[in-house]
């Protein structure tokens, strides 16, 4: 019984969206640390690349479609890890900090939108399943 429900939740888009939420939360933490340390001398900005995350996700989707069934219960998306990198963009100021407030604000806004969008889509997935199960609107 539990296996059937597991499969139901695993085969759709819910795992992708869950990983997206994990990513946006982790990225927000890094951006927050960057904003807080905007005047700290010698501090280097940290970031997670959304492009690399999307590429990783695409690979896992392909693997799932190709039928590489992992062990019972495990999802192909569970062990997704993105690497924290130090982007080399921006001016290096005299105090050794390569801050850019404008870039941080823009990244923060985009990340928050990605997060909210993933939450709404995930909610819709669960709501559709529930409607079907209830056999009622």
């Amino acid at each position: 019984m539990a296996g059937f429900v597991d499969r139901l939740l695993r085969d759709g888009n819910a795992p992708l969206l869950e990983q997206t939420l994990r990513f946006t939360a982790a990225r927000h933490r890094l951006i927050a640390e960057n904003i807080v340390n905007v005047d700290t001398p010698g501090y280097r900005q940290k970031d997670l690349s959304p492009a690399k995350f999307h590429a990783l996700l695409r690979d896992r989707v392909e693997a799932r479609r190709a039928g590489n069934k992992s062990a019972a219960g495990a999802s192909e998306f569970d062990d997704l890890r993105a690497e924290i990198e130090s982007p080399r963009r921006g001016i290096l100021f005299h105090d050794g900090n390569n801050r850019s407030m404008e870039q941080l604000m823009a990244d923060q806004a985009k990340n928050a939108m990605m997060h909210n969008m993933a939450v709404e889509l995930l909610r819709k997935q669960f709501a559709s399943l529930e409607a079907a199960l209830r056999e009622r609107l």
Partner: protein
Amino acid sequence: MIDGVNNNLSVGPVGGAGGRVTAAPAGASFADTLKNSIQEVSRLQQDASQAVQDLATGKTDDVTGVMTAMEKSDLAFKTLLAIRAKLMDAYEEIKNISV
């Protein structure tokens, strides 16, 4: 008189679920319409699922397109559910007709 009634009515054979229940002329049967509707709903749901997947993996930027596709599939699915509920109610009613 009873024979007359039997001869005048031309009710078709009662088939499985969705079989002809009216003295309908030749044309699309209710079963075919229902089957097409189900296929349409399934297609819309697959489109929506693919659209969400593309958005989540970064293949597309078109948020409005994805939301529209999701809304369409959701609406179609709910319509199908409503039709099913009506059919079930109709079936219950007919079943309870005492002969």
